[in-house]
């Protein structure tokens, strides 16, 4: 589904990613762990096309196509989703109306008709139930005045609504208490199928108790320094990242 080859990227002239290789197949859940400043969020932003980041070398192939030249919306339309670490507040646009706008934009890109009101309502009901969100909540303005937990829940709700092929979850656990974490993780697990994939970015192993990854990659100083299974995450929680840095050196 996703193949990243020798990816280098920089922000304002500083190289953050220094040669990333990563392959994600349909049905797989990958986790990327690593210390702060290692490049985890940069990787998420580069895959989704944030133009604040400049790709200097390498390729990102999504379903056989190099997507580096595509705008963020085109990547989203192809089925890439990013759950933001810090979702942006957009007063004046209700969650519900925004979802309709996004769904119709994606449909339009595929030459499909707009979603009907009835269909949309059914989808809103189903997915808000999945994440324990009150329908009234969806009439509120996007992220405006939402608590940290509500914002993250709303991100996963959007993911459920858009039904992407590849979901990237950037520090979805930060700012969540244990109950909210469980709801969010449950949601992600229920949305998981054999034909979609997830890339979970996290600093702590905690989230991976709930979203159990098939692969764990450790990103340190712009490079993946180790790949393993879920046990690697437990080891990292135990020993920290320093032993990997030493190993790398």
């Amino acid at each position, binding site marked *: 589904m996703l193949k990243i080859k020798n990816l280098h990227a920089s922000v304002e002239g500083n190289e953050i990613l220094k040669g990333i290789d990563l392959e994600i197949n349909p049905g797989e859940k990958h986790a990327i762990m690593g210390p702060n400043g290692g490049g985890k969020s940069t990787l998420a932003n580069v895959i989704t096309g944030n133009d604040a980041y400049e790709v200097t070398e390498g390729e990102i192939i999504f379903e056989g196509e190099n997507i580096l030249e595509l705008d*963020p919306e085109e990547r*989203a339309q192809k089925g890439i*989703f990013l759950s933001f670490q810090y*979702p942006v507040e*957009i007063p*004046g646009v209700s969650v519900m109306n*925004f979802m309709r*706008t996004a769904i119709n*934009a994606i449909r339009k890109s595929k030459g499909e008709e707009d979603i009907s*009101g009835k269909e949309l309502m059914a989808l809103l009901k189903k997915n808000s139930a999945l994440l324990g969100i009150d329908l009234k909540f969806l009439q509120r303005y996007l992220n405006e005045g939402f608590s940290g937990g509500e914002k993250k829940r709303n991100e996963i709700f959007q993911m459920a609504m858009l039904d992407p092929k590849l979901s990237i979850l950037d520090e979805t656990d930060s700012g969540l208490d244990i109950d909210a974490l469980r709801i969010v993780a449950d949601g992600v697990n229920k949305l998981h199928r054999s034909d979609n994939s997830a890339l979970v970015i996290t600093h702590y192993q905690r989230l991976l108790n709930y979203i159990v990854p098939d692969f764990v990659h450790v990103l340190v100083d712009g490079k993946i320094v180790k790949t393993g299974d879920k046990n690697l995450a437990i080891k990292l929680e135990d020993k920290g990242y320093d032993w990997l840095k030493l190993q790398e050196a």
Partner: protein
Amino acid sequence: MDLKEKLISSYHQTQKDRPKDAFHALREKAISYFEEKGFPNKKEETWRYTSLRPILKEDYQLFPKNENTLTQQDIAPYLTKGLDSYLLVYVDGHFVENLSQPIKTKTFTATSFSKALQEKEDKARIEKYFDQIAPKEDRDRFRSLNTAFTQEGTFIHVERNAVVDKPIQLLYFSTGKEDALLLQPRNLVVVENNAQVKIIERHQSLNENATLTNAVTEIIAAEHTLVDYYKIQNDKYTSSLIDNTFVDQHGNDSAVFVHTFSFGGKLTRNNLRASQNAEHLNTTFKGVTILEGNQHVDHNTFVHHLQPNNESHQDYKGMFDDRSHGVFDGYILVDRIAQKTDGYQKSDNILMSDRAIAHAKPQLEIYADDVLCSHGCTIGQMDKEALFYLQSRGVPKKEAKALMMYAFCTSVLSSVTIPELKAQIDGYISSKLGVKMDFDSELID
């Protein structure tokens, strides 16, 4: 002969044929004031950012003939779709009765000056209220000019305890039968105790000839009144507008709202003046301005707090593309007696191009010591992170921008109380932003 000379000489010429009616003295005073002061120029503080030179150089026809040939179909695009309203239509300065639905009931009147002056009671009211707002020494030149030339306009009177059951739409057309046309319409709105009215005003040119409209509106609001006034400024890029609106709230517990939506026109200057002459008043001025090309809009507001325990709110949102230029010059004056005043003004602006300009000049002058007054102005660019957020959900950049700009206007749009008008404004915003979007439809009943 420049425009000023032309105006003065044609004034004196036409006076010969005009009856020495109740307004004669006012006209004379007004024209001599205009003669003395002339048109404003950029050296004056309140005109620093707006040059009138490009619009004053035209050779305007001042007294267009009455040769209207417009039909319902011609005017339909400029009406608020689906809105049941009372309608007053003027073409090239003349009232067109067969396109209008004036109303005169026991409790309210909405008609043209020419018709109202034929009714004894209405005539008496016009004579009582016409051109009486604001102290004479503070006369605005454009208002004086209008007063000297007033021939036609709208008279609205709402009797005690009456609520006008439908909004009143005022449509002033220019047909462009003249090469260049100066129009000076006048609106007088008198709202008696415990009465309410909603009004929509629009000036529209129907061809590409230069048109300058110098409009004056006087709103006189008594006790416990609600006046909800909307100005739609979406004219052709060859038309300019000087709007002069004066609000006098002379009875306690009155609320007056003026919303101005400025999307079209070449040069627009909104002179909005309110005097709070009673207590527990609310004066609210709001506006959305979206400009492109070489368009220029200048919002010049003045709220005078003359009595205690009042509030005033000003909230203007501007978005400027290309070489367009937006000005917000807001002035709040709080007299010593006006304790417990709650006044704020806010002007937020987004520049969409490197060459667009926004000037924001909020001013507070406070002589009372127990007030709550604030102001805030921002000028910035679009938030790129927010834009990326919307795009990352599949919304194309252009639509994402439009959505953000629409969101930016929410605090102004949310107080539009006529749903059909709100839908019309939404439509103008989306077409101005070059998208086809339904911004704000309700999905849940």
